[in-house]
């Protein structure tokens, strides 16, 4: 990608992060930590990778994205809103009564959401079903899904991985956000799923291991994914939970907690400063 493209993506990642902070602050609830760790991924998907049309969110031949770690809806919503699927101001209605922006993604209320998720381990199966269906329908679209590293403790995730490899779903790409933290603490302490890449390879995947905050590496992995034939692809990205907000970084406590007014001001000031810095590049 060009330097200017990269700069635009970096600026957008800041805006996605701002949307996460604004939404969870307004909701007084929600999951900022894992939304922030995946901000670059959400940005890359909706501003570079996915063949989607905000004017026609249900276009049949679009690429699909399933947010298997559905609790990080604030990040997905921020990307969708910035991409033009719905007004950015609506992010402030997150989790409010009667808002279409539910705490976890609802495919029937949110334009651009391809599958209702929230119960961990299921989105990945739905994505595999979509990829299988796309092959049966001779559609050239691709299906992407994002999982948490804690989420892969769910046995169903591995049923889905087995399925994707068995049916040679080379139109399927699973991204694992390895931020190392889950509600109860370090993923390694709660119930270690490591080593993740080796497990995925043993399940029949081609795997890329990248820094999930580096757009060059993200692009490299997504390009590689398209070259692999006859087997599914996985991207294991090392990330920092709470990335971009100093006091949230690396803190499991920010998995599912909203910033208060003062914390909100601090976070937004940091993100605005980062955005100015990127724009001045």
């Amino acid at each position, binding site marked *: 990608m060009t330097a200017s493209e990269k700069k635009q993506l970096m600026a957008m990642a800041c805006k996605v992060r701002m949307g996460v902070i604004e939404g969870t602050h307004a909701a007084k609830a929600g999951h900022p930590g894992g939304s922030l760790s995946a901000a670059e991924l959400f940005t890359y998907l909706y501003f570079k990778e996915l063949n989607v049309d905000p004017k026609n969110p249900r276009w049949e031949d679009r690429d699909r994205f*399933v947010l298997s770690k559905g609790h990080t809806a604030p990040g997905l919503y921020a990307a969708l809103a910035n991409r033009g699927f719905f007004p950015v101001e609506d992010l402030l209605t997150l989790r409010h009564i009667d808002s279409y922006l539910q705490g976890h993604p609802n495919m029937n209320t949110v334009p651009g959401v*391809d599958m209702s998720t929230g*119960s961990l381990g299921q989105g990945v*199966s739905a994505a595999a079903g979509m990829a*299988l*269906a796309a092959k049966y329908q001779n559609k050239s679209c691709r299906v992407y899904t994002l999982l948490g590293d804690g989420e892969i403790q769910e046995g169903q995730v591995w*049923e889905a991985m*087995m399925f994707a490899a068995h*049916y040679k779903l080379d139109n399927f790409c699973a991204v694992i956000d390895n931020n190392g933290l889950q509600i109860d603490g370090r993923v390694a302490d709660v119930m270690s799923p490591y080593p993740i890449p080796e497990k995925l390879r043993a399940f029949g995947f081609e795997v890329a291991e990248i820094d999930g905050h580096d757009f060059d590496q993200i692009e490299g992995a997504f390009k590689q994914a398209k070259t692999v034939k006859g087997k599914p692809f996985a991207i294991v990205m090392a990330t920092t939970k709470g990335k971009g907000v100093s006091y949230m970084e690396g803190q499991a406590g920010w998995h599912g907690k909203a910033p208060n007014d003062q914390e909100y001001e601090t976070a937004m000031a940091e993100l605005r400063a980062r955005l100015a810095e990127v724009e001045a590049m």
Partner: protein
Amino acid sequence: MADVKKIATRDSYGAALAELGAERPDLIVFDADLAGATKTGTFKKAFPDRHFNCGIAEGNMITVAAGAAAMGLVPFASSFAMFAAGRAFEQVRNSIGYPHLNVKIGATHGGISVGEDGASHQCCEDFALMRSIPGMVVISPADDVEARAAVKAAYEHKGPVYLRFGRLAVPVFHDEASYKFEIGRGEVLQDGGDVAIIANGLLVNEALEAGKVLAGAGIHARIINMATIKPLDEELVLKAARECGKVITCEEHSVIGGLGEAVCALLSEKCPTPVRRIGVNDQFGHSGPAAALLKQFGLSAEHIVEVAKEFCGK
């Protein structure tokens, strides 16, 4: 009656899928290593490229089917009732029910007539589980004709449907030429005004047999086949309650949460009526030949007769 044809509704399911598949290219089938038993193997033989075995992983199968439905296909996902409705309940609830996706769950081996496999495989809780999901249609056909018609109706219906089929061969009493199935519509098989017997699944035939015996004893029972448990044909139930004054429900399911409770809930709100529920009485089944088990658990014409006589004071 000697030459009544007997067919297991699981066989009807497989046959109906194969028949529908010929005209409906958007129909695909998922199974979880039970294609021989659920009879989706019949479809597989005809359309091998549209039958996807998911292995012994029912939760994944149900959610994979949801994903395929989100792409516009009409998936039928099959396993034994115990695993399709029981093990995968939360997947059905969250990935099919909540998004209201167009998946049909074809669950075979419902109830204790599974027989020798015993309690672990005898699902008597599936109506209760599936009924509790908003927007889910729940159907338990009584014989081959109805089962095949129900599969086609489920395909035409836009939205999730749970279909329960049996392992045991049961008498075919519907006339294919004249029978019409409609989701949410009960069927009066025999008129009568002394007591209404509302049944589904293999208990419908038992109720018909009971009706004959009762007639001999001067009790004129109205026999209703209530294949659709949800949405319930409220009008037909209320009419029967008003006109008969007594209602007996019969199902191869726990008395908790199934047809009996659906009928009781309706009647207690809109037309309080004495009810007797025939079903599995809050207990697990066990191994044994299906016919012997049905008799032992009171899921038989004889028991229906006993209950009706006591109920009617005769």
